[in-house]
């Protein structure tokens, strides 16, 4: 028999604290679809995706209902298109992107990730074609997400790719200017990209992954915040002593354990029902614009006036680490990013801090050195030079490369908007106040190109 506490705690998590499975992502390898003929390649890709994805949505809904936990998003990730579609030029790439979009619609998934290139050491023909195609591809499709890995701790930073991405991000914004540059929200630049991320826009299926696999992304910032609030309300720890940050870290860790268990049980069952292997559970505190589903609110519960206040980086470091510890104990299949996200427009509390000037690009950059992703969903002025965007990317990639961690940049230069203006992307993407970018000129540095060499692994200080 379940205890009273087990029942009420679990019910509270589900009913009042926004616990959900944020995404079940079906990974599909496209390496066996390769062809020199574009039409044949597209037919192979669409057939393979349809073969495995046709039951994904109904089965996720059925299992979500069984456990009373909604599977909010069903998604697909595929092999890096720059590799599997390498023979085709930019126009061919756009056709592939549209074919993927059609396949995603047919499968009734909300996003398909993997329109990606891994260019940390150099650009092959397929990589260059994909990067050149980005403005057309992402503005002419609805459900396709793209990730470009431009740096790694083993290879260094590909500054040529970063320079090109600075231009292409502006190109994507211009191509979707009628929708406030929304195409940029589907494009992320990475350092050390994990190859099993289930979350968008960074999801793709890496080279070492199974042919088809189920990965799960669980979230739950609301659950973590409520757990902290309950502890604060109680006033003392289990031993009756006054609360300290050790107690806070402990409660975050335990909550992360619970949330990860939910993801694993649902992911395992979805995989079993589809007759596929289960890959990873990625526990990431991924906020939504809904009140009570915010990472920023956790900072307030832990005693800061808002995210961005002095102490924010320390709080985020503790939060990120406690989440990883709880997740790692809950499942041997933890992967992906597994940590805390700080996407500005998608989190009402973070956006509020940014709008009030309490959170700057510089502070966000500092915080990304200890969180699981990076500069995420930040709207910037539409007239930001490509070299400045490239410079921001280079800074963020350097943090990832030196610290052997994943970092990423998802900037949206909103055409026609200047710092302080407000833009609404709608839905889960939320709204954003345009944030000023750091002043100064990076154009000569970016124009140098080449590669920042990989860092030394000894003499660490």
């Amino acid at each position: 028999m379940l205890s009273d506490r087990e029942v009420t705690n679990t019910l509270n998590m589900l009913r009042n604290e926004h616990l959900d499975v944020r995404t079940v992502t079906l990974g599909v390898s496209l390496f066996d679809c390769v062809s020199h003929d574009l039409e044949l390649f597209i037919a192979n890709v669409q057939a393979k995706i349809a073969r495995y994805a046709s039951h994904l949505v109904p089965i996720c809904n059925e299992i979500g209902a069984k456990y009373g936990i909604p599977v909010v998003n069903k998604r697909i990730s595929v092999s890096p298109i720059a590799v599997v579609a390498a023979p085709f030029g930019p126009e061919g790439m756009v056709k592939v992107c549209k074919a993927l979009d059609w396949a995603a619609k047919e499968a009734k998934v909300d996003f398909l990730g993997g329109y990606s290139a891994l260019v940390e050491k150099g650009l092959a023909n397929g990589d260059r074609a994909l990067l050149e195609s980005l403005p057309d591809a992402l503005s002419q499709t609805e459900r396709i997400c793209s990730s470009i890995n431009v740096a790694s701790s083993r290879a260094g930073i590909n500054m040529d790719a970063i320079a090109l991405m600075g231009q292409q991000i502006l190109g994507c914004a211009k191509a979707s200017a009628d929708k406030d540059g929304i195409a940029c929200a589907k494009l992320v630049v990475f350092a050390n990209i994990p190859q099993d991320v289930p979350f968008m826009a960074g999801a793709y299926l890496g080279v070492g992954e199974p042919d088809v696999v189920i990965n799960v992304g669980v979230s739950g910032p609301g659950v973590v915040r409520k757990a902290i609030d309950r502890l604060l309300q109680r006033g003392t720890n289990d031993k009756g002593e006054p609360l300290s940050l050790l107690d806070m870290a402990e409660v975050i860790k335990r909550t992360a354990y619970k949330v990860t268990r939910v993801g694993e049980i649902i992911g395992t069952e979805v995989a079993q029902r589809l007759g596929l292997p289960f890959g990873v559970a990625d526990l990431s505190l991924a906020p939504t614009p809904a009140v009570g589903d915010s990472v920023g609110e956790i900072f307030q519960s832990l005693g800061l006036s808002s995210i961005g206040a002095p102490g924010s980086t320390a709080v985020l470091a503790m939060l990120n680490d406690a989440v990883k510890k709880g997740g790692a104990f809950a499942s041997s299949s933890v992967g992906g990013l597994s940590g805390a996200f700080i996407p500005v427009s998608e989190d009402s509390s973070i956006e509020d801090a940014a709008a009030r000037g309490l959170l700057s690009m510089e502070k966000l950059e500092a915080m990304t050195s200890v969180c699981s992703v990076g500069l995420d969903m930040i709207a910037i002025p539409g007239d930001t030079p490509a070299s400045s965007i490239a410079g921001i990317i280079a800074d963020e990639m350097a943090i990832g490369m030196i610290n052997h961690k994943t970092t990423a940049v998802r900037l949206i230069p909103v055409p026609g908007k200047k710092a302080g203006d407000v833009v609404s992307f709608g839905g889960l993407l939320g709204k954003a106040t345009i944030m000023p970018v750091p002043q100064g000129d990076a154009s000569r540095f970016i124009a140098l190109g080449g590669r920042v060499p990989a860092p030394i692994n000894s003499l660490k200080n």
Partner: protein
Amino acid sequence: MQKFTVSFLGRDCPGVVSTVSGLLNECGCNILAATQSLLLGEFAGIFITAVEEGLSREALQDSLERGLKKASLDLSLIVRPTCEGIWGEGEACAPFVVSADGIDGKGQIAGISRVFSRHGVNIESLRAFLGEEDEKRALFVFEIMVPASVDIGRLRRELACEGQTHGLRVSVQHRDIFEAVNRIESI
């Protein structure tokens, strides 16, 4: 050997279990299974016992009642032959937890359990928490076994509908999720 089910119900106090188990022993009962529960100071104990052939139910009841009187314990007693077999044995069933919460009112448990009965669903545990957050609020938790033949979607819809008529919000979840979240499996 024959089996009798013996149940005791009454005010709880220290020594209740000692007295009733001692009485069963004195009456020649070997306790095969036992459970006890406390609810707002009321004690309930059920014992499955094995006794020698030839001891009638009436004689056992009479002996136990005399023993209780002698011990000055105000407990109600029922003795009946144990039924063989358990409901659902051999049938594929899945464990679910149904929780219903809202403003407390009359007929709520009856209404929800009527839906279970209609679908051939067995209630294995029922608990009511009254006035935990607000004195007018009630939370009912049913742990149920659902035969594989039952359409869980339809059961869920009918429970939601019944709950609505009583001002209750009903959720139906597989029991595994509660265990996964709260327990570490022993190895």
